[in-house]
């Protein structure tokens, strides 16, 4: 591997892994909460909320990145306030790339988790109730473990997709080597340069391999957990 790939590729790979990891870590609890709200809660505007959550699936990624820039850029509505009061800057940083990735992969994650929550037998929750479990206890001891296959599938799929997020990242976090130049951005950059063909090919192979490995890992993991749950 080291022989085949040079520093530029490995840097991009490391950065992609870091961005995807952060993005999943950040969005997972929110995705569980959102899935729960969309499945179990009844509130006005639920359909609109549902549509809003799924928006990144249908919007051009560049539009999402631009919206993030308007909102969280150093002079953005929220970004300006964060910058002046806490010194937090998201645009053009690795954290920003992770955030853009999280927003883009969020619907994927919510869909997988929601599907698993819909499959949780409410009868088991009722049984837990008669056994003395209060609401939060019930969620943590019964609902959450039974959702685990969906949560894992959602997390791994979002991770794999996050490795390759391009449009939103380049718009919101730009293409800074070592900071926000992830695999797809490095690939794009290589393709733009006259002598970059070989590098571009290596980066493309790396991307294919990673994507395939991610999807396979997700499938195996889910099978294993399902077996543990006896299904």
């Amino acid at each position: 591997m080291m022989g085949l790939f040079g520093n530029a590729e490995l840097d991009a790979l490391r950065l992609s892994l870091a961005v995807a990891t952060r993005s999943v870590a950040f969005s997972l609890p929110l995705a569980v909460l959102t899935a729960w709200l969309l499945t179990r809660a009844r509130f006005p505007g639920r359909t609109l909320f549902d549509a809003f959550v799924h928006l990144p699936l249908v919007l051009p990624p560049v539009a999402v990145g631009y919206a993030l820039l308007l909102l969280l850029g150093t002079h953005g509505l929220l970004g300006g306030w964060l910058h002046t009061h806490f010194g937090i800057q998201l645009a053009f940083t690795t954290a920003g790339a992770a955030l853009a990735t999280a927003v883009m992969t969020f619907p994927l994650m919510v869909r997988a988790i929601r599907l698993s929550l819909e499959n949780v037998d409410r009868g088991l929750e009722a049984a837990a109730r008669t056994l003395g479990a209060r609401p939060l206890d019930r969620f943590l001891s019964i609902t959450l473990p039974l959702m685990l296959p969906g949560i894992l599938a959602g997390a791994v799929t979002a991770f794999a997709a996050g490795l390759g997020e391009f449009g939103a990242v380049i718009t919101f976090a730009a293409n800074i080597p070592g900071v926000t130049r992830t695999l797809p951005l490095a690939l794009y950059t290589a393709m733009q340069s006259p002598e970059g063909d070989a590098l571009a090919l290596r980066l493309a192979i790396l991307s294919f391999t990673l994507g395939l490995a991610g999807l396979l890992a997700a499938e195996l993991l889910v099978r294993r957990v399902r077996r543990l749950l006896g299904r």
Partner: protein
Amino acid sequence: MLRICLKKRRGEFTLAADFCAPTPGVIALFGRSGSGKSTLIDMIAGLLPPDEGEVQLAGTVLTDTRRGIAVPPEQRRIGYVFQDARLFPHLSVVGNLRYGEKRARDRPHYVRFEEVVQLLGLGTLLARRPHELSGGERQRVALGRALLCQPQLLLLDEPLASLDVARREEVLPYLETLRDWLSVPMVYVSHQFEEVLRLATSLVLLERGAVLGAGPVGEMSLRPELRSVLAPELVGAVLDGLVTAVDAASGTAELSVGSGKLQVSLLGAPLGTRVRVQLLARDIILATQPIQGLSVRNALLGTVTELSADECGGGVLVKVDVGGPLVLARITEGARQALRLAPGDAVWALVKAVSTRGHAFRLFRSPAPPSRSPS
């Protein structure tokens, strides 16, 4: 004492139940499917809010819509054994059993883990997962799980309905053991009369959302309302008695029932056992004079108290007071006219000892130690 007075509308269906039943004891909710049995126990458990009414258990108000009381299910101390067991698939048998126990730390414990494992024969199953259990084993684990939350009442919603006959026989003895050793009050939902006979002390009869009658099983067995629900061949007086003599040579035992004696075919029930027998109405012969030269082992002299035409089963049902206990005999209209039977007449009720085979059940193997009673 369990006091129920509940109303619930669900679309076209209206349930209105009002009855009291003594506790401890096994209260059978008996009726056809769709009569409202499950709706009723869901409301007792607190899983389903009633439109109006109240639930009181041993003086504690659990539900009272007028006073706005609705104790949530998790605080009711009511164990629930569901028809489909509902074991948690992600936990082992031990995990399932301990689930309720862990959450009952602040409650008085009257049954310990080891005891439940032993009573229900769960020792070899502990490490298994629910999907590795048979249907009968699953129900036993569900039973143990419900017991370990130290309930003051156990609800059982047709726990044997999803099992085949062999598996039922695998679970029923355990239910009898629980009744006899732990004296946990139980509400047992069933549409199988045999289960009611084997387990219940009192019977609540439900039909199309209404309570047709409630009372001790023996008393209810004579009520005409029961006949509208029960298959005609299952109609018959239920008598509780004590084994007073066992004759192994002839294969019979003598039961003392009220002030009378009854010879029954009874294998394996030792002296002093409390036994319940059902004398099927169609098995009983009536005679207006003493007769000789018959193989029949019981000739009980009594008085006809009531004659009623039975639309559902056909013929005439004759209620005979045989010196305390009452028996029911089904005869044809022709036989009634030939014997010119009328209330007040003296008759002999003839009961073959072997007719009780398969219709006799042990009751209360041993009185439960008083310290075990749930408070």
